[in-house]
């Protein structure tokens, strides 16, 4: 079986927000030079889910890592290959970039079609930069496949996937026939680190680069031109709070003072 995993390059989520600068005119976040970029953590977990399926089913499982982004995104493919993916696909054509969830899902769905014989698409539940959570589900809609969201565990037996989903009030296990799109949540657990052996092998694994033309996408439907959402503004939310620190020589005194503050504000 073939699994396609969609991975996105984002600013390292551990980077403190204060490091970023907002370019109000371009309505974009500016990352100072030298700040690290990383694979979006949910996507890393989606790749981990694919690797676990291969661990269980053995060598017949092929894993392709797909990314849409600027040329620098090649490094997340390298990371995916070092984690254990078999091949990479880079969609770095400027005509495909700066789109919204719709344009991105359209390009990735076209790439899945071009790969051919894909049984399972795995993606993070949302990207760690836009936090939108629409691309994976959108790909399923565009491919005419089923989407199963917020997976904690993904297993495949024959032509059926068994997925445990995280709900607001617990867990749910569903079965769905392949082909399928599954979006993976952080509850899946920590992704593996690239091993030295895989990192050495990664350099020899193939990476294809496809443009809008190869995907059969007309220019007006791709990237920024095809986007349906327009970012009008990007800003830092205002903080209105002024914190009053509770004084006290001992924890008991602090606790009593806090309880009095709550009482006086009629919160008890």
């Amino acid at each position, binding site marked *: 079986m073939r699994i396609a995993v969609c991975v996105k390059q984002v600013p390292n989520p551990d980077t403190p927000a204060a490091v*970023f600068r907002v370019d109000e005119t371009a309505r974009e976040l500016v990352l100072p030079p030298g700040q690290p970029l990383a694979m979006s953590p949910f996507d890393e977990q989606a790749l981990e889910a694919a690797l676990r399926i291969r661990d269980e089913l053995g060598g017949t499982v092929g894993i392709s890592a797909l990314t849409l982004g600027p040329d620098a995104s090649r490094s997340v493919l390298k990371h995916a290959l070092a984690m254990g993916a078999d091949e990479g696909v880079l969609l770095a054509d400027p005509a495909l970039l700066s789109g919204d969830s719709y344009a991105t899902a359209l390009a990735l769905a076209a790439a899945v079609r071009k790969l051919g014989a894909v049984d399972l698409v795995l993606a993070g539940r949302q990207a760690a*930069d836009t936090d939108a959570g*629409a691309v994976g589900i959108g790909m399923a809609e565009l491919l005419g496949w089923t*989407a199963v969201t917020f997976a904690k565990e993904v297993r495949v037996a024959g032509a059926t996937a068994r997925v445990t989903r995280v709900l607001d009030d617990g867990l749910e296990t569903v079965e*769905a026939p392949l082909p399928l799109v599954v979006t993976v949540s952080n509850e899946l657990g920590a992704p593996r680190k690239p091993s030295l052996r895989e990192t050495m092998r990664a350099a020899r694994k193939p990476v294809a680069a496809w443009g809008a033309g190869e995907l059969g996408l007309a220019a007006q439907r791709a990237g920024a031109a095809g986007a349906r959402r327009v*970012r009008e503004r990007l*800003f830092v939310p205002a903080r209105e709070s002024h914190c009053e*620190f509770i004084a006290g020589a001992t924890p008991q005194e602090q606790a009593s003072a806090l309880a009095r503050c709550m009482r006086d504000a009629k919160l008890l």
Partner: protein
Amino acid sequence: MAAGVLVVTEIALGKPVAPVYELLGLAGRLAAGTSGKVEAALLGRGIEGCASDLIARGAERVYLADEGALADYEPERWVARLVRIARESGPAAILLPHTTLGADLAPRLAFRLDTAVAAGCVEIARDSGRLLFTRPCYGGSFRETLSMRTAPAVATVRGGCHEAAARDPRRKGEVVRVEASTAEPAPRMNVVARERTVSDGMRLEEARVVVAGGRGLEGADGFVLLAELAQALGGAVGASRVPCDLGWCPHSMQIGLTGKTVAPEVYIAVGISGAGHHMAGCGNAGNIIAINTDREAAIYGQARWGLVGDYRQVIPPLIAAIREIHATARKSE
């Protein structure tokens, strides 16, 4: 140009979840002064009685689909029915609560309607005829305002960001039944098991007081103390992402960007640093109280009161002080 707003109702325990009333309040403000109506889509089984509730909360028309096949949320059937409702209603925007159901359903609906979705909005405004959607991004550290080139715009809205529509039983509205079509889609996935996390009865999203713990609790034991404090305050216990990922508490307790959104009157954050992805789930709380050993923690920037100290030493006397205040208040009544 379409100006109406359609609210998709999520039902729990036989009644609309609290964010639905907030969506109706928001829809009323967005439709005010326009030719557009406030409408609601009500899908489920045995939920017909909720229609009058939605009308009392401001829905001028309720599209009702009450049948066994819609009893539990199942995306294929729900999306197909909602597409028909959306085509009939022709709204400018379709609003859903930003819950697991809403986050699963909204993108499907948007793509099926060949339009776009804004997820996890905290604000929606009308600006010279068009709608602007403001939402947290980059893990909650930044916000973006979006406009849409296609209609209807689909949006999920975070709980606690908007005032709920007041209930007024004198309001009038019509109920339109949307029956199953002859070509009803078959579910494409089959639920084989469901495991509900049993909480102590109170829904985290509806609690007036929430006591939440983070990495600073340093272990599962801390939640026992937090539960005791929550009990003294008549509240519920939540958590940031780290304790859930480390297995100190169930994921159903997670508050934040990928967890629940709460807006209680009092939010006590214990051992929580205040990262953007957590604040995206609790930033609208009325009063944030932070207890942390690190005086430089970002959480203090958003707190009304800060207490620098070790929660193990502070919380037991805090529980005692709260109980004492309660006892005094009861005596004087």
